[in-house]
């Protein structure tokens, strides 16, 4: 039996990969995929904890998270298309009318 810590460490590494991708990638679609990676890393944590606590609820949460991620994807891709239409680019560095 694989101990729970393995799953948690893997989940933390995946989450960190997502954060890193969000920060360094220079394409809006890839950045968006990094966010999805973060959500799925959390899903892995949920499942691992659910089996640790012998609580089914943790596994049910994963479905909710997936649904939310799907809704976010629908809206997010629509926004990305709208950006592309007005700007002809997906590089966030060039989407810079508003100064940070």
């Amino acid at each position, binding site marked *: 039996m694989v101990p729970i810590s393995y799953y948690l460490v893997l989940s933390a590494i995946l989450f960190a990969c997502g954060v890193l991708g969000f920060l360094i990638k220079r394409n809006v679609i890839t950045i968006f995929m990094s966010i999805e990676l973060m959500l799925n890393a959390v899903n892995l944590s*949920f499942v691992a904890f659910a089996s640790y606590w012998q*609580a089914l*609820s943790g596994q049910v949460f994963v479905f909710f998270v997936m649904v939310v991620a799907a809704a976010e994807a629908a809206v997010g891709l629509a926004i990305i298309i*709208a950006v592309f239409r*007005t700007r002809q680019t997906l590089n966030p560095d060039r*989407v810079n009318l508003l100064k940070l």
Partner: protein
Amino acid sequence: MIPSTDYIRLLPELILIVFGLLVMLIEPLLGEHNNRKGLGAIALMGAVLSILASFYQTGYEGAAFFDMIHVDTFSIFFHVLIGLIAAVVILASFEYLNLQQIRYGEYYGLILLSSVGMMLMSSAVELVLIFIALEISSIGTYILAGFRRNAPISIESSMKYFLLGSFATAFFLYGVALMFGATGSTSVYTIATTLAQGATPLAYVGIALMFVGLGFKVASAPFHIWTPDVYEGAPAPVVAFMSTGPKAAAFAVLLRVLFATEAPGWFWLIWASAVLSMTLGNIGALVQNNVKRLLAYSSIAQAGYILVAFAAAKDIGISAVIFYAAAYAAMNVGAFAVASHLANVGEKYVTLDDYAGLGRRAPGLAAVLTIFMLSLIGIPVTGGFLAKFYVFQAAMQSHLTGLVIIGVINSAVAAYYYLRVIVYMYMREPQRDVPVLKMPFALGVSLAACLAATIYLGVLPGRILDYAMASARVLVR
């Protein structure tokens, strides 16, 4: 079997969902050139009905849907507040949408549906439900931010809000997962009993990560970077909505998560965030020339003042937070509503120079904006003054002298940029010809409502304060 009282405990949300869907269903039946004011009227009716439903809930306090939501004086207060914000913003949008040639009725539907998320956030006592409610409210506002579809800055602000917002909610979700791992439950009350027996490091990390997600929603430093950009690009009435509604809801969640669970190790987190928000917000606002950007930085600073009350903790601090949330909503919605009217077609006139000489060109509007600015500074007879007073009083009573000193210095600094707006309006000659449109009736009503609420909270705070105190006691019991 779900008892029927459960549905009453969810009634305000149900009404909003029904009216939101109704608006969405009628929208495609309308012609290209219909100005969608009828849909606005339907949406307004939905918002008003849900406020009435919230009042009706007072007789039906308690848990519903297997302890997923909890109706108490606390949740009812936030339901009414969010309902009022939605109603006033819908009123303020009637003429705006017409002017900007936005002929999409979904606008009203999205306002109602994201209000559903915010209301659920204030009554949810289950972390996963809180996450879903947070997403419901966020996804609606992501779309609303990009509603001036042909204006590149609007779409850009929508994209920034979406990317950073989902990034922050992922952190919040990770926090929920770790909290679940630490306690074996996601129910706020079960977590409270488990944490009372001693907290593991996992719980500390969970609280910190959840604070990242909620800190983003309330625009507190260091999670505030998105605020000025998004507020500048998004349509002004939408900014009025998303600078108050989601903020109030996220503060409600923070109150529940921190105080109902008696979460460990949050004090320095809140302390640092309060100091950073006040300082960075006020310093950032000093150099702004765009009024929407200025108000964005001001809203970061205002979040900082509210966090001061969090640090003060327990019932007096909580009631100060609740009172501040109400006063802040009244004055901020009002200020952005004025800005949306002055912005004119295509939101062309949004800089301070465009406000020069407004005192002569539109004396009424200038006077109203002056009152909102004075309230944001915290001048007596306005809601802003008493809100700040209660916050600092609560902090003093909890012996947080350092925090109070930093807060008061910040309030003094803040007076500079709010007064600058007033100086421009009354003492500067206009540089170019800026047309001011006739005040439409609906916007007039919404401004009058904001004005009345601001003055009411400043003159007769008693009832709201008593109510806030009662809500606070429910929360910490």
